[in-house]
């Protein structure tokens, strides 16, 4: 008898909390999807340095950026011939993804924007800071990007890594190079 009471209690509890979560999920799903879409589109526009407002992002995006699908990959193109694509991979602690844009010569980095990261706050987490991302500006992606110890960057494909975050820097280098290799094949670079 006692066991039955326990089973009934656990079942009811599971049903109520499960049902509650389903309701919350349905209620927030659409909003979360929109937020994600906004985040990706704003990152792409940011990487091309195109200005937008929260209300007109759809218009600005469709007017200025063209999505090109090739094989299984897709990349983004502006009227000036600048190219941008999404990169993603695993960092030190969790996934890192973002957008990298290239000048129309298809080998000089324009800008990198991070969409999501879960690195150590204050150490690897600093990959989102402009100060770090600006170091990539004007660098050449061929033959590959190399992250070197802070202050040692000399060649045009070398970038200073973050002090105290070697793991994140190495992972970031790997993610960028893998993505670039993949895209260089279809871009014919």
């Amino acid at each position: 008898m006692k066991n039955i009471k326990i089973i009934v209690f656990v079942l009811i509890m599971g049903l109520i909390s499960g049902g509650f979560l389903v309701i919350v999920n349905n209620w927030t799903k659409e909003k979360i999807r929109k937020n994600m879409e906004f985040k990706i589109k704003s990152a792409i526009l940011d990487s091309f340095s195109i200005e937008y407002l929260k209300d007109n992002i759809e218009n600005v995006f469709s007017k200025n950026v063209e999505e090109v699908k090739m094989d299984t990959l897709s990349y983004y193109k502006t009227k000036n011939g600048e190219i941008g694509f999404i990169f993603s991979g695993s960092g030190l602690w969790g996934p890192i993804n973002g957008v990298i844009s290239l000048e129309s010569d298809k080998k000089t980095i324009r800008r990198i924007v991070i969409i999501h990261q879960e690195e150590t706050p204050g150490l690897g987490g600093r990959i989102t800071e402009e100060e770090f991302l600006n170091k990539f500006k004007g660098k050449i992606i061929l033959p590959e990007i190399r992250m070197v110890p802070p202050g040692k960057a000399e060649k045009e494909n070398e970038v200073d890594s973050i002090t105290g975050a070697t793991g994140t820097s190495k992972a970031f280098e790997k993610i960028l190079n893998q993505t670039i290799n993949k895209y260089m094949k279809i871009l014919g670079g």
Partner: protein
Amino acid sequence: MIRFKKILYTRSFRIFITGLWRDNPIFCMVLGICSSLAVTNRIENAITMGIGVTFVLIATEIIISSLRNYIPVRVRMITYMTVISTFVIVVDRILKAYLPKISEALGPYVGLIITNCILMGRAEAFSINHTLKESIIDAISCGLGYTYILLLMSVIRELLGFGTLFGYKVMGANYENCIAMTIAPGAFFLLSIYLWIFRTILKRTEN
């Protein structure tokens, strides 16, 4: 004045003060250490984590305390876990949908509230055998007790580790950032120094 003195001696007030000082979750019960080490390298992280934990703690203690006469003893742990994780998921979804900026800043910390032992500890030690009103007071006081220790730690860590407070530079240009303070091992040292100071004061005042 007399009314104020009366409040000081009520049961509710004693519960409130106990959570803040004598039974403080961090330096007395030594619960919630993992999160206090992980998130205290920036003041804003510490504050948001404190608010999150306090909210989930209040919600959990309300549910557990109102159901305390119906929860079978043998499954009470599962009940705590279910209630806590449900609330944490709800907080996470709502933040993602309505406050995407804050949700992004918190990142994985929201999910980490589930593993905060203060929630489980207070449910088992307090709300399972106390009234609703007392449980709410206990939740608020433990939440605040947790938050102010996080704040104390994060002020020192951010100042020494980054030379900033709330993101603003306060240390001089020549200041060399102390990287040890930004990572968990530095927090261990700081936490033990705090434990030492607070426990010494606690012992002095009790005698």
